[in-house]
């Protein structure tokens, strides 16, 4: 290019760029507010309900537009990380419970403590949204796991009608008895072969025994305790003696095929049974434990606000709207979700009249989430690998637990 054209060309590009940025700025200041929201609920059964809630909100707030973007579980986490890193994250983000510390500890989420402190008593399970005593995420649709029992197999094994195991001895007994019915029938479904599953099944046993992974001051790993040893010994016996070991989906398939007597699962299985096998002779019950009920794993979906958002107040207002009792009820009915975060919602007959949904509601009170630490994703991996070594490769329990403790403490020291 001729050099004499170079300078004017650069000036024109600069001017156009400046004009574009000015016009964009004036839009955000004067025009209606657009709140960008990234969320994961894409199932056709729930999508229209979310659209309707948004429409209703926009009617009530004519100056606010909600721009909803659907993410998938396959790559949603990556997209959120990239968006935060590149400064293009939306105003509101739905986050899985164990992702929150990762983003709150790096300053990407807005501290909403002062604005929600009065709401805490009305909602379940704030713990995963709290980091260093500040609240960064609002609980929305939660999830816990309960014990599913095939009543036909229980009957076949001559257990009394309405009998359910409430402690570990009884659980083991039911497991062994059903397992001995036939060669291809197993007492219990034990997880393997998938990430993010096995630890969710083992930890509730550990927590039921009052076990801790990290010390209260967050500095040490106390996982290799006597409690961990005893619970793992029990879980190993359950897994190796009378269980089918497979992925969650395959365990659930086998349960529905009448090949597994008991599985621990979430509300998605209940939805599947109601839709596909309404005739299934099902019993759901609380997780057995040293004290009944035992602890279960609590996870779920949380709503957080981008720390860089220009519309934090409006974003919080929308979050409070979508998590209010009525909207959560609409959501749960459409999606058949058993654990709304709003306590008021759980009082609706939709939950009270369904004995299985009630099990989930009650179990939520005896559920626990993993410690909200930014390193959790690594800690989880260390625990899961140790569990696999112990359960499936005969690694000595005490030595392997101690190795896991050392690995976790190495991580904690790197802070």
């Amino acid at each position, binding site marked *: 290019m001729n050099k004499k054209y170079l300078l004017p060309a650069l000036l024109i590009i600069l001017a156009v760029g400046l004009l574009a940025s000015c016009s964009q700025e004036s839009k955000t200041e004067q025009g209606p507010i657009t709140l960008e929201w990234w969320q994961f609920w894409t199932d056709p059964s729930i999508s229209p309900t979310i659209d309707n809630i948004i429409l209703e909100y926009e009617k009530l707030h004519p100056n606010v537009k909600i721009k909803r973007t659907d993410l998938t579980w396959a790559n949603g986490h*990556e997209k959120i*990380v*990239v968006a*935060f*890193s590149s400064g293009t994250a939306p105003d509101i983000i739905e986050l899985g419970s164990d992702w929150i510390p*990762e*983003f709150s500890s*790096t300053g*990407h989420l807005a501290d909403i403590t002062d604005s929600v402190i009065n709401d805490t008593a009305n909602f379940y399970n704030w713990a995963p949204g709290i980091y260093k005593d500040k609240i960064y995420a609002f609980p929305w649709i939660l999830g816990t796991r309960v014990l599913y029992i095939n009543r036909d197999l229980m009957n076949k094994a001559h257990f009394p009608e309405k009998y359910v195991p409430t402690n570990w001895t009884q659980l083991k007994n039911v497991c062994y008895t059903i397992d001995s019915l036939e060669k*291809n029938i197993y007492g219990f479904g034990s997880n*393997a*072969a*998938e*990430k993010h599953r096995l630890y969710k099944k083992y930890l509730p046993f550990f927590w039921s025994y009052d076990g801790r992974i990290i010390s209260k001051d967050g500095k040490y790993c106390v996982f290799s305790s006597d409690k961990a040893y005893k619970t793992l010994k029990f879980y190993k016996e359950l897994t*190796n003696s009378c269980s*089918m*070991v*497979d992925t969650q989906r*395959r365990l659930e398939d086998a349960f529905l095929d009448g090949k597994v007597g008991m599985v621990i699962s979430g509300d998605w299985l209940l939805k599947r049974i109601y839709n596909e096998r309404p005739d299934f002779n099902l019993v759901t019950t609380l997780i057995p434990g040293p004290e009944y009920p035992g602890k279960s794993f609590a996870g779920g979906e949380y709503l957080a606000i981008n720390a860089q958002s220009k519309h934090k107040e409006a974003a919080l207002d929308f979050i409070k709207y979508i998590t209010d009792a009525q909207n959560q009820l609409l959501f749960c009915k459409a999606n058949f979700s058993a654990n709304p975060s709003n306590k008021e919602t759980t009082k609706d007959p939709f939950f009270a009249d369904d004995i299985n949904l009630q099990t989930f509601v009650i179990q939520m009170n005896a559920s626990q989430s993993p410690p909200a630490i930014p390193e959790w*994703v*690594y800690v989880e991996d260390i625990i899961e*690998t140790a569990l*696999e*070594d112990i359960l*499936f*490769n005969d690694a000595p329990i005490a030595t392997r637990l101690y190795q896991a403790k050392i690995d976790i403490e190495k991580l904690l020291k790197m802070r």
Partner: protein
Amino acid sequence: MSSRGLTGRLFVSPWFITLIIFWLFPLLYSLYLGFTDYKLLSDSYKWVGFANFRALFSDQQFLQSLKNTFIFVIGTIPVTTIIALLLALLIDKKFPGRTIFRSGYFMPSITSMVVIALIFTNLYSRGGYIYLLADMLGLSPPENGFLLSNKTALFSVMAMDVWMSVGYYMLLFLAGLKSIPKELYEAAEVAGASMWRKFVSITLPLLKPVMLFIVVINTIKSFQVFIEIFVMTKGRYGSSTAVYFIYETGLNRFEFGYASAAAYILFIIIALFSIIQFGLLKQRGLR
């Protein structure tokens, strides 16, 4: 510059710009990242010199992944090559239904790796056909299936990889066999050479270029094994490989600096092997 020269450059520019933006820049940038402690969510990243490389060589997970990769490479390449050659020799003979066999053996090569991996996951699981067959033969398969045991997970993936790859390499061998002049075999027959002698003295030497080509591409492919591991074991049960480690570190933990350093170590290993193999090709005048 003449207008002809400018036009030429303009025509080349789409490819050239793409090369720079999507190939050269990421390649060099990841090399740079390998010397930093860059994590995607952190705001800053600082130069750490060779710290990532040093840490990798004392990282048991990485070393185990590297070891598994070598086991995969050393275990699959000879087996794949020998079976592919044997199949090619069999298919080369004229017999009814030869085309069906040829297509059948080649079929896995054109089927999605993910689909095959999912099918094999079922076959290997407790109650799957391979599991039941092993049980019937009294081979005492692992209690929870082949993919849920440290002793068998990696080898099971390797076996599937061999099954999947032989068809493709068989076709390459077949092409090589077709190019061997028939006169050589006729002359050997006249001289009273046995089948084995013909194979050792004619077939094998003349197939060497094809064999070396197969070994080179299979080595590079095997060093980069990922999809099978991702679908079948998620790197569990002692089956993690180098690329899977890089994926986990980079795209699950977002430790881009560490992952880039690991990627460059693998790059150097593959480059070394390729140089040795190309050297062999050159030495034998087979290029």
